[in-house]
């Protein structure tokens, strides 16, 4: 009897904590959604956490039309910078981590330790010297000045090595060699498939890291039309005091800017779960 009461108590307590945390995590986003759906005049005059007249369509068309549609351009830039860098960066990291896991060669451990040291080097410490190097090449304020440095993901190499060791058996590679398959072809047709759930994890981590990167574009880019959406929203937000009508656009823009990642999470969640739990399958 005592046990049952105790477990009921535990259940209620645990559920209460979870619900409270759900409120904490979701209310700000709910506020953003509700706020983005209101007209300017109702934004500050109506209940902040509930809808008034639905004005989202007008807000969106104003956002997309503002200054020749610069916001859509920013969204496109972000998707190019982030999607491109994460996709290419994941393939490069996977190949390097795979080679470190599956081949013995002189200097292997030294190379691995160098890459691991790279994980501890904060990306922001690189932004300034990268700017100086690119400015010597007259290449600052270009797409490439942000895109190329974003390709490098040492943590991805580290993860790829661990996952390749765990999920690609040596016997399989031996068998492929006996069948006459080249090393590179074996990687793309067999090994990469076995590593796929892990690669999704690496891709997502890389995607979020580049999507969040702020200092590099802030230092590198002067031309507003090259901005990623984070830098664009930041630049609007700094002007809110001079141009108050920008505030509404910042709120609607903030809502739109988080949608692609939420969609990516929902879409990749299935793979990601199996990737993270890779060690749990015996």
């Amino acid at each position: 009897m005592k046990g049952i009461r105790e477990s009921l108590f535990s259940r209620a307590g645990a559920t209460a904590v979870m619900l409270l945390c759900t409120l904490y995590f979701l209310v700000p986003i709910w506020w953003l959604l509700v706020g983005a759906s209101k007209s300017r005049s109702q934004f500050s005059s109506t209940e902040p956490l509930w809808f008034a007249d639905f004005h989202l369509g007008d807000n969106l068309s104003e956002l997309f039309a503002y200054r020749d549609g610069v916001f859509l351009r920013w969204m496109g830039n972000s998707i190019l910078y982030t999607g491109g860098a994460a996709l290419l960066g994941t393939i490069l990291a996977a190949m390097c981590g795979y080679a470190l896991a599956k081949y013995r060669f002189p200097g292997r451990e030294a190379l691995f330790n160098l890459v691991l040291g790279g994980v501890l080097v904060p990306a922001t410490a690189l932004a300034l010297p990268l700017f100086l190097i690119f400015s010597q090449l007259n290449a600052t304020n270009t797409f490439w000045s942000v895109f190329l440095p974003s390709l490098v993901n040492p943590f991805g190499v580290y993860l790829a090595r661990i996952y390749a060791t765990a999920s690609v058996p040596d016997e399989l590679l031996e068998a492929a060699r006996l069948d006459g398959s080249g090393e590179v072809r074996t990687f793309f047709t067999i090994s990469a498939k076995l590593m796929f759930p892990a690669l999704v994890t690496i891709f997502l981590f890389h995607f979020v890291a580049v999507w969040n990167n702020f200092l590099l574009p802030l230092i590198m880019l002067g031309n507003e039309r090259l901005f990623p959406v984070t830098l664009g929203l930041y630049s609007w937000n700094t002007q809110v005091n001079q141009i108050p009508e920008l505030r509404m656009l910042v709120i609607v823009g903030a809502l739109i800017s988080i949608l692609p990642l939420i969609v990516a999470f929902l879409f990749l969640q299935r793979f990601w779960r199996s990737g993270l739990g890779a060690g749990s399958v015996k």
Partner: protein
Amino acid sequence: MRSKSPVRALLFFILPFGLLFAAFYLLPIGYAIKQSLYKVQRTGTFGPATEVFGGFEQYQRVFENGPFWSSVGRVLLFGVVQVPVMLGLALLLALLLDSGLVKGRGFFRLAFFVPYAVPGVVAAIMWGFLYSPNLSPFTSLTSSVDFLSADFVLWSMANVVTWVYVGYNMLIIYSALLAIPQEVYEAAKIDGAGPWRTAWSIKVPLVMPAIILTTVFSIIGTLQLLAEPQVFRTFSSAVSSTYTPNLTVYSTSSIPNFNLAAAFSVVLALATCALSFTFLKATQRGGDK
């Protein structure tokens, strides 16, 4: 394509990443160190500026720079409070998810993880509005506490960082919990351990490596604080241009004084590496016992 020697395949696998790593990691580090050893000299007041070797002069200026060291102290204070709170909450939520005490695990996991989809800059802008007394939905709270005042703004930022990263850290710890084999729990049950005791004496020690990993990433992230304070400068006058070490680097480089900014960067990178390395070593020694 059949490559006879594995050497060619090996180069094909390693070179693309290796070259980019050299160009965009090693070269900038080397370049920053070189820049930090130079200084700009002018002949006369209006003469042309030339870069000459200055030895450790910039580093001397870094060590004598009061605002920089108080910004380091500020982020350390931030980290000492925020990292344990964030990871404690992440651990608690992961344990609750794993305990089987709550229904709707899929929903909760997703709900907690959604803030991670919000970029730091956007999260800071959003919370900046939520803290502003005239916009906030929590007027009773914002009218009694000024979240953007000099005393409070550091902890307001800590809340933003916590909000974004709890779910991410929870997911890493949770996936480590899922990897624990069931037999371990059965043994504990036979020994008569209740759910709390199982959590504390079995689960937490087994997921320690995941907790250590998330701690190291959090330490690195804390020392790099930039987006949140930079955004909060538009909401609060209490955030100066040297509020965090990275803001100091940014504002020094926009003076522009690249040599001094490079020295700040080098010191900050070394401090970050040293701190995360020390933490890793300390926890490894503790784990040996």
